[in-house]
């Protein structure tokens, strides 16, 4: 920061000559410089947007390729036929084997997946190690009752049209966090089109603010943290 008036002159003379010298030597290299810039830019964009997500997520196949559409036509009560509430108000999530056995004690069709299911799991009495796409981190308390029962929300609002799927997409696990890709969303940039594209806290919060759900927090003027955290 010091003022270097006394030295300025001498140095600038040198500098001027040096600039001139460079000007002579590097004339017309502006294009090269821009090219290098573009190469760097494009390469890193490709790394960030294309390569990075491939490295970040590992893929796992579900143990059984479950067909939601098929089941939906066979049950009477929509999603709640299998994904039900317990008496204490908690949500049972993915059904346990016992629930499946109610229908699948014996093989019902010629579907090879069903045959595999009955043989590998039902007959042996082993729980199916389903990989839950929507599993939230342990610190999250999500009340299905509040959303489905009290607010009468549709399952699809958060889960999307999974009930219409005929086959299970691969489960993608974030190698760093260990969580399902569906939490962050398919788009690595975090952009979303539908309400169910992402399941991060910001997405919960977005909806809660829109719906003007109770304001309890002194700090954020939003909802209290303990509403959704445990």
């Amino acid at each position, binding site marked *: 920061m*010091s003022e*270097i008036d006394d030295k300025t002159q001498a140095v600038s003379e040198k*500098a*001027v000559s040096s600039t001139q010298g*460079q000007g002579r030597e590097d004339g017309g290299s502006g294009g090269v410089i821009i090219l290098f810039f573009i190469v760097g830019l494009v390469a890193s964009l490709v790394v960030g947007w294309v390569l990075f997500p491939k490295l970040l997520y590992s893929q796992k196949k579900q143990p059984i390729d479950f067909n939601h559409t098929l089941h939906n036509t066979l049950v009477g009560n929509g999603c709640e036929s299998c994904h039900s509430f317990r008496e204490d108000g908690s949500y049972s999530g993915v059904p346990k084997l016992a629930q499946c056995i109610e229908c699948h004690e014996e093989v019902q069709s010629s579907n090879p997946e069903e045959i595999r299911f009955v043989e590998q799991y039902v007959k042996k009495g082993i729980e199916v190690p389903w990989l839950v796409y929507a599993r939230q981190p342990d610190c999250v308390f999500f009340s299905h009752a509040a959303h489905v029962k009290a607010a009468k929300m549709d399952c699809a609002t958060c889960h999307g049209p999974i009930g219409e799927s005929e086959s299970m997409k691969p489960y993608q696990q974030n190698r760093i966090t260990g969580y399902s890709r569906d939490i962050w969303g398919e788009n690595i940039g975090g952009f979303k089109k539908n309400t169910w594209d992402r399941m991060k806290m910001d997405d919960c919060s977005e909806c809660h603010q829109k719906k003007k759900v109770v304001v309890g927090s002194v700090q954020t003027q939003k909802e209290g943290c303990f509403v959704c955290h445990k």
Partner: protein
Amino acid sequence: MNGYGLAEQYSGISNQRRGTKVMDSALIPNGVRRCSLDKFLVALAVVGAVLLWGVYAMLLCWFKGLNQTNMNDNYGFALWIWADLAVIALGGGAFFTGFLKYIIAKDELKNIINYAVLIGFICYSSALLILAIDIGQPLRGWFIFWHANVHSMLTEVAFCLSCYFMVLTIEYIPLILENRQIDRVPFFHHLSHNMHSTMAVFAATGAFLSFFHQGSLGGVAGVLFGRPFAYREGLFIWPWTFFLFTWSAAAYGPCFTLMVTRITEAISGKKLVKDNVVELLAKISGWMMTTYIIAKIIDTFYWANVTAPSKGFNLIDFYSNNGFYGIWILVLEIVLGGIVPAAILITDKGRKSPIARNTAFVLAVIGVSVNRWVMVLQVMAVPIMTFDTWALYFPSWQEVATTILPVAYGIMLIMISYRYLPIFPQEAELNPAD
């Protein structure tokens, strides 16, 4: 291409050692003498060893967690936060000297401003480093920006601290660019020149930011209404400690700059800054200190007689029934560390006498450090629930090492900067070659 001289030397590498030596001397500013490279490297290695010790302790803290420290649930804040507050107060010389030079236009201070900036840069980078070690979840450190709680003094600290650190970096860069070799690059030369001309803007920004973060560091303790030892009333959202901290940093910071300058002079064995410059800054510092200590005494008096009793405490409750914190610490802070140095520096005689002046610098540095100590550690030590007891604390070696780490880093940065950068504009004049 540039750097021909270097390139030539490289091309003819037959003797690596010779080459290194030549490179070293090529980097040293014109017209000044420096110690031999060997001596320099040995000294650097010694300090570097201390630095490595600190780095080892830092890694222990990061990988094993804060159980490596002697902090506990009573001492959530301890040595590190003290070190943080202290270095920031001491680094206050940068913003205040800058303020004086660029805003008040005390032109003589151009002869010390470089060093003030460098010391400020060291202090603030150290503060940030210590904070990064101090938090339990370093990988979540960015939450303070992203999920900021605007009510928290610490948020204010974090934002202003980071911004001011950037300002200091911007202020430090032209200094680096003035290195003999770098300066030969026209781009850098012009950059440096342009930065110089806009420096007043940065100095103003720095002063503004400093006002807030120095203040909010004071606010950190002052807002603790659950801690009668720390709590102060105030103005709007800012407790009195907010203003006291800013004021004391402005008052005491330059003393630290001058003290370090004196130490540098002693080690290099050269006069680096003219006495009139030192005396000017010392005088301003002295008067700042005088006004500060009056304010501090009023604050202490009001706190002892109004604030604390309203919460059921007598002053003596804070200074008795324990094995360390006696009333002596208050005397040390206010009298020895405040009144005495202020009295020395505001008198002409005191300023002119090198011994008195230097004593005043040291006392001032102690004074402000003690103030920051009590505002962190004594706050934690005082029992508040009647059935609670005093908790005393002694830092673990890991805490000590990580606190010394930035000191070592600072010394190294000063060594390198002093050797290769024209920090002291008056050096050549004061120490003519031959």
